[in-house]
């Protein structure tokens, strides 16, 4: 082995003290291949070194949880011998550099995480954050990311059923692309990554290895500057058809009992997959790199181990089953190569051209991965702003039109019409509602899925914002009638080495943990994306929550439109008119200031449980959660979805603009055919409700305001995004 005794100039992102630890572990200096392996395994992206300490505080258990964090994805029991397997993951940095491929391979990567575990992916979701619409790059990034998400998911034949798209100048230099996949598997056919057993063949399947994406995980763990464009070679190129074949081949092989362990080659490719399998199985792995299928000539061990070429998997098979596996993969026109074997050594040994080119003890590589309890400072609390201190609009109806036609609240139809949201024939709730609703194939059940986060609340108060992200996702799943089962989280923050950023992360995790506990929605999987900064400007803290729920009888689900003409309209939950940090304050009054609305988790739980029960009992004909833009925006969206109008009767006791646009939490707007029965049920449950009108007519009339026709609402709501995307820069 060739060793350099001197400390190299380029530590590949590792710190001096981390390098010293490597010297201790090896008892010598690492060669370049070994240094590369340590570098990616100990990158923020793979090791969670800044966040692990806090992630451990999150609730991860529950009777429904089959597998919590630590595997490729989380697994929850949904009855009938079936499990939902899901996870959310970021592809922020690659998508900023190369939006189409970055987003596409993000979708490909998260689907692989799910089918690695034996699940057929049944739904894709996403959470996207772009810079200001005025920023010259925004349109290009939106176009590329949406096309990339659609391009990959559509080709895979997995419906993309919903998500979020928002704009804020804080993302000008660092967009967020978080992709979530939900899959279904039999509970007795779930696959894990522990390579238990020795003398077993280590098998490489899928696409060939090229030089794309080398050190991608390290790139994802650093900030951007003006020269970020030169990082384009670190972005990988996806081939969705190859992944479709890989999916079918893997599921076909999984139907046999030939597989002992399987791990997808995602971030840090062959390195992390082999290390993870060896570590969890408490074995050693020797790989012969000459046998790795290669797309390019003269690849070095360093390049092969750090390549992030897409659409690859590593498996450990039962001995003697290689030919059976090969026949399946050849049928699907994919490579299969036996590239190594497990042994007792607990070392990762790499051989290449007759030489040993790396020899690393696995347990310390994993266990000694750095974990930092970084210094943090709590975000200073903001003052609570009284409703009276936020200016009323000149005209209430015009203010509503402005909001529903704004970049953040307008229709996302332009986006989701580019996603095949119906393939697989189980999309019961199409995009645009509160939660997507996907039938469990061949049953009468359905999964409800929502992704949510309100970054302007999080930046104002990370704890409340963290709670709110969980509460809103839980509320959206509840609003269709489903019982939330668990969540996956994607923590997108700036540089954790800055105490104020670390304080945002700590606060958000604390808030999320409290909410997950109170709402019985444990965290079963997740991803952390830090260093989302460009030239020292951090993004808004964006801890995205993906919530998955179950509805036993899909025919009992309700939509987010008004029910029938004549149905009574109620607001469920208490309305105080909280305008601080609201969309109204930001977009109409100017500047999102003050404290965000607090989330009372006990009330959230009580109101949500009441709604779910009332839907199950058939008391509710339409239900929509109240979030950005308050009651007025919720009513407008329900009118647009159903084509019905409503006249709000009576005058609120608080300033009418605060009533209309306040963002108090834990609320829903519902319509009910039997108002008395509903009122009695609410009283029995101790849930405050207020009746605000009856469904009817073709207009929405807010208190004391001029009527707005549903056609005008729809027209205003649908216009901004397609016009923005069609416009050209001057």
């Amino acid at each position, binding site marked *: 082995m060739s060793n350099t005794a001197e400390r190299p100039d380029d530590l590949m992102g590792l710190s001096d003290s981390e390098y010293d630890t490597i010297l201790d572990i090896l008892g010598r200096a690492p060669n370049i291949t070994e240094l590369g392996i340590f570098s990616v395994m100990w990158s923020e992206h793979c090791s969670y070194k800044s966040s692990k300490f806090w992630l451990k505080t999150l609730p991860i258990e529950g009777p429904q949880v089959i597998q919590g964090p630590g595997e490729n994805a989380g697994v929850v029991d949904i009855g009938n011998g079936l499990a939902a397997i899901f996870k959310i993951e970021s592809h922020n940095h690659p998508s900023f550099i190369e939006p189409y491929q970055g987003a596409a391979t993000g979708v490909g990567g998260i689907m692989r995480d799910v089918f690695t575990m034996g699940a057929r992916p049944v739904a894709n979701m996403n959470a996207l954050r772009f810079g200001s619409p005025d920023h010259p790059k925004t349109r290009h990034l939106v176009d590329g990311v949406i096309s990339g998400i659609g391009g990959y998911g*559509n*080709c895979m034949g997995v419906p993309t059923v919903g998500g979020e798209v928002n704009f804020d100048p804080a993302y000008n230099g660092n967009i967020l692309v978080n992709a979530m996949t939900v899959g279904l598997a039999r509970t007795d056919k779930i696959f894990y990554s522990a390579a238990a057993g020795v003398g077993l063949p280590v098998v490489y399947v899928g696409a060939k290895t090229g030089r794309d994406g080398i050190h991608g995980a390290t790139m994802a763990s650093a900030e951007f500057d003006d020269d970020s464009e030169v990082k384009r070679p670190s972005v990988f190129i996806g081939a969705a058809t190859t992944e479709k074949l890989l999916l079918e081949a893997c599921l076909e092989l999984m139907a046999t009992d030939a597989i002992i362990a399987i791990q997808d080659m995602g971030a840090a490719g062959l390195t992390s997959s082999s290390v993870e399998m060896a570590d969890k199985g408490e074995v050693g792995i020797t790989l012969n790199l000459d046998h790795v299928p290669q797309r390019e000539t003269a690849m070095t061990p360093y390049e092969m181990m750090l390549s992030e070429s897409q659409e690859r998997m590593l498996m450990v098979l039962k001995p003697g089953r290689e030919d059976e596996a090969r026949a399946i993969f050849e049928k*699907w026109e994919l490579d299969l190569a036996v590239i190594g074997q497990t042994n007792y050594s607990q070392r990762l040994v790499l051989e290449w051209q007759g030489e040993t080119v790396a020899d690393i003890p696995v347990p310390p590589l994993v266990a000694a991965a750095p974990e930092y309890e970084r210094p943090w400072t709590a975000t200073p609390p903001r003052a609570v702003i009284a409703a009276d201190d936020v200016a009323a609009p000149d005209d209430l109806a015009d203010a509503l039109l402005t909001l529903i036609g704004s970049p953040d609240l307008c229709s996302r139809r332009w986006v989701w019409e580019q996603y*095949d949201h119906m*393939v697989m*024939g189980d999309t019961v709730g199409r995009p645009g509602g509160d939660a997507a609703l996907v039938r469990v194939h061949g049953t009468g059940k359905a999964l409800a899925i929502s992704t949510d986060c309100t970054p302007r609340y999080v930046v104002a108060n990370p704890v409340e914002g963290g709670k709110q992200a969980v509460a809103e996702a839980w509320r959206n799943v509840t609003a269709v009638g489903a019982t939330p089962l668990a969540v996956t989280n994607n923590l997108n923050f700036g540089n954790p080495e800055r105490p104020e950023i670390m304080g945002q992360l700590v606060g958000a995790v604390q808030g999320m943990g409290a909410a997950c506990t109170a709402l019985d929605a444990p965290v079963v999987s997740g991803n952390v994306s830090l260093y989302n900064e460009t030239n020292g400007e951090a993004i808004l803290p964006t801890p995205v929550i993906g919530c998955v729920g179950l509805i036993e009888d899909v025919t009992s689900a309700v939509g987010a439109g008004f029910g029938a003409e004549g149905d009574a309209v109620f607001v469920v939950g208490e309305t105080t008119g909280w305008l601080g940090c609201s969309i109204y304050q930001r977009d109409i009054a100017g500047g999102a200031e003050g404290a965000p609305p607090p989330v009372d988790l006990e009330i959230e739980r009580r109101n949500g449980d009441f709604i779910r029960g009332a839907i199950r009992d058939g008391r509710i004909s339409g239900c929509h959660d109240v979030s950005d833009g308050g009651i007025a925006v919720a009513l407008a969206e329900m009118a647009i979805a159903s084509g019905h109008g409503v006249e709000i009767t009576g005058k609120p006791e608080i300033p009418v603009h605060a009533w209309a646009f306040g963002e108090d939490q834990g609320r829903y707007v519902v319509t009910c055919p039997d108002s008395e029965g509903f009122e009695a049920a609410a009283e029995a449950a101790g849930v405050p409700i207020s009746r605000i009108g009856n469904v009817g007519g073709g207009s929405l009339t807010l208190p004391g305001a001029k009527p707005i026709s549903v056609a005008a609402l729809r027209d205003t709501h649908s216009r901004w995004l397609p016009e923005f995307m069609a416009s050209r820069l001057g």
Partner: protein
Amino acid sequence: MSSAAVIVFPGSNCDRDMAVALEAALGHAPQTVWHGDSSLPKVDLIAVPGGFSYGDYLRSGAMAANSPIMREVVAYANRGTPVLGICNGFQVLTECGLLPGVLMRNASLKFICRDVDLRVERNDTVFTAGYSQGQVIRVPVAHHDGNYFADSETLAALEGDGRVAFRYCTPDGDVTDAANPNGSVANIAGILNKAGNVLGMMPHPERLADPLLGGTDGAPMFTGLAEAIAA
């Protein structure tokens, strides 16, 4: 008992949806036939489903059209067996010469997934017997390359023979530019071969054949086909 086959290429992804719709109409599951097979079992109906066969490399449907099984499909079609190609299946049928014309990239250059209205141009075929002539049905499209084009001579022949099966239209049945989702010439959504036993169409009737999914206008195609091949 009549039987149906669904052809599966590497990259097909609507094969299950097609099988579900056929099973609902036939009362039993169709057979799935792998693209590499060189012979078809004896069947009364062949369905070529949607997806991205061979990743749309070269041109949509071009690679699949040259796979071993398509020689068999063409032979069956020439003997009069009904062949239904939906979406990528339509692209495959044009590439292998069973149907004229070509499916180009959508005029918007974007993938489009949404419900569209179709006018049933004729109901005297095995595929459309479940509809009435001039009926407007609502089914989704989901494609990137659905912009049908044929030269004027071919188009004149298609129109002259009455081989346009479906056109994109308004909910009232008017064939307008605004109702055309992808730029197809003459708003053509589906066409027949000369003998009337091969139909290619871009929209997906198999996706709206279940009330829970928001519509059932696609179902009569499959029930009609089931009756026709049972007769």
